[in-house]
């Protein structure tokens, strides 16, 4: 039994009067891929955004309970938000490279965290692009605008941009929903190699993706955690009838 990287307890979240997350409890192991599945609006993305506090941008939000990463409470008043977001990186639904050059995108993170040394930045850029298998393709085009890349390349670039700040946890919010099936497969392969070094959480609509690409699966419905366990077990012998209904496609 590996130690838990992320520990969520008694988590409740309200948008105004709307109870979006209800008493969520989950412990997530280090260096595994966990997928969060469930129908639209069940709170998957909300849960993900709790972990790096991206929900802070939403007005009228209220969060109770405890969310610990490496034993540190994310919502304690002395949590350093910048450090948290370095530690817990996020990849979004639509690739969102900045309208800057490829190179400037990759080193954006290190730069805002104060790295000025050229050689160090170049090394980081190369290393990060190599990890997402973009370096050989793009090494002669690093000065081109990132917006000229294909969507798959853009999404890889966004992952590279994240790796450059050396996170420990990577949150992916439906990272393949804007990609075609072939590109999706490539990104999934990439996740398998990243698993060696990072704890990965992926929100997905695509149940095949969850079954293929994750070690653990977390099923949510209307803000509640219905089932959580090893992916194989959740998909072959779900404990809860509601999970079975969902994964067999009876609704959702």
């Amino acid at each position, binding site marked *: 039994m590996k130690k838990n990287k992320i520990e969520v307890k008694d988590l409740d979240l309200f948008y105004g009067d709307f109870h979006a997350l209800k008493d969520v409890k989950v412990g997530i192991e280090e260096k595994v891929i966990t997928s969060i599945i469930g129908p639209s609006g069940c709170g998957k993305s909300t849960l993900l955004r709790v972990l*790096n506090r*991206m929900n802070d*941008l939403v*007005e009228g939000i209220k969060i109770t309970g405890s969310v610990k990463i490496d034993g540190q409470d994310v919502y304690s008043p002395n949590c350093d*938000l*910048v*450090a*948290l*977001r*370095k530690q817990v*990186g*996020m990849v*979004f639904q*639509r690739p*969102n*490279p*900045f*309208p*800057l050059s490829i190179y400037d995108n990759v080193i*954006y*993170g290190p*730069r*805002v*965290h104060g790295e000025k040394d050229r050689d160090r930045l170049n090394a980081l850029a190369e290393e990060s692009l190599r990890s997402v298998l973009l370096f050989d393709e793009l090494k002669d085009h690093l000065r081109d*605008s990132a*917006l000229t890349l294909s969507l798959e390349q853009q999404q890889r670039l*966004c992952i590279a*941009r*994240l790796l450059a*700040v050396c996170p420990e946890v990577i949150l992916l919010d439906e990272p393949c929903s804007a990609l075609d099936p072939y590109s999706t497969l490539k990104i999934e392969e990439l996740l398998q190699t990243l698993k060696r070094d990072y704890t990965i959480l992926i929100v997905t609509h695509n149940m095949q993706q969850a079954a293929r690409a994750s070690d653990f699966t977390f099923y949510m419905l209307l803000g509640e955690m219905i089932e959580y366990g090893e992916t194989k077990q959740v998909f072959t012998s779900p404990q809860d009838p509601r999970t079975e209904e969902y994964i067999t496609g009876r609704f959702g």
Partner: protein
Amino acid sequence: MKRAFEYFIEKLILLSGIASIIFVILIFIFLLREGLSLFAATNPLEFLFGRNWYPISDPPQFGILPLILGSLLVTLGAIIIAVPLGIAAAVYVAEIAPLWLRDILKSGIELLAAIPSIVLGFIGIATLAPMLKAVFHLPSGLTALAGSIMLAFMAMPTIVSIIEDSIVSVPKSYKEGSLALGATHWQTIYKVILPAASSGILAAIMLGIGRVVGETMAVLMITGNAAVLPTSFLQPVRTLTATIAAEMGEAVAGSSHYYALFAIGIVLFVISFVINLLADMFLHRKVK
């Protein structure tokens, strides 16, 4: 019957659509006809680069270089003041202010645009000019600097609202992406949001310049109106617009003075046309 009606309506709309273009062309033709008559007597180069504007001496001299430089100096000053303030105000309104304050600020800025320029000129004479006079120990506070400050106020609403629009239209995903990498709000603003909004900012500056160059009443009142080559901001200057406004009443129709004022009008027209063209180019520039 119905078809004839459709035809009639269609043509009517077409006519309204092209009316503004027709008006611009007519105005331009009128300006050209009146203004170009000057060049029967005066050399165009002498007109543009002559250093002396003595329209009623004998013989008259129509050199508008001091007026062009006066306009440029006042405009430059106004832009130097208004652009940093405008960017800061727009960033505050679009990114930082809480919702309730945002609405108040936006209507405040629009209200600033609604103040008639003569009122601003009046306030300038009554408050700003004496202040400048005291601060810089000048013989008179009516200077290029006074004009620049008042015009900065006039250009601000245009500049702030266009920059604010362009900041708001920066995709939210850029902001989220930057924050998620651990950038602070301020880093996100100046490293991602402002560069992404840069074409809107350039357009705002251009339209601000357009507003300032064409402004007449306030500058006429507070720049001191001395048609000499300006050497500093603390000196009275006279602008192209103020010259036309001040002298049109006394110029005899058909005299070379009268034509010279129209020729100044052509110069102003060309300047505004170029500025608007540039602003349009910036606004519609595709981000590559």
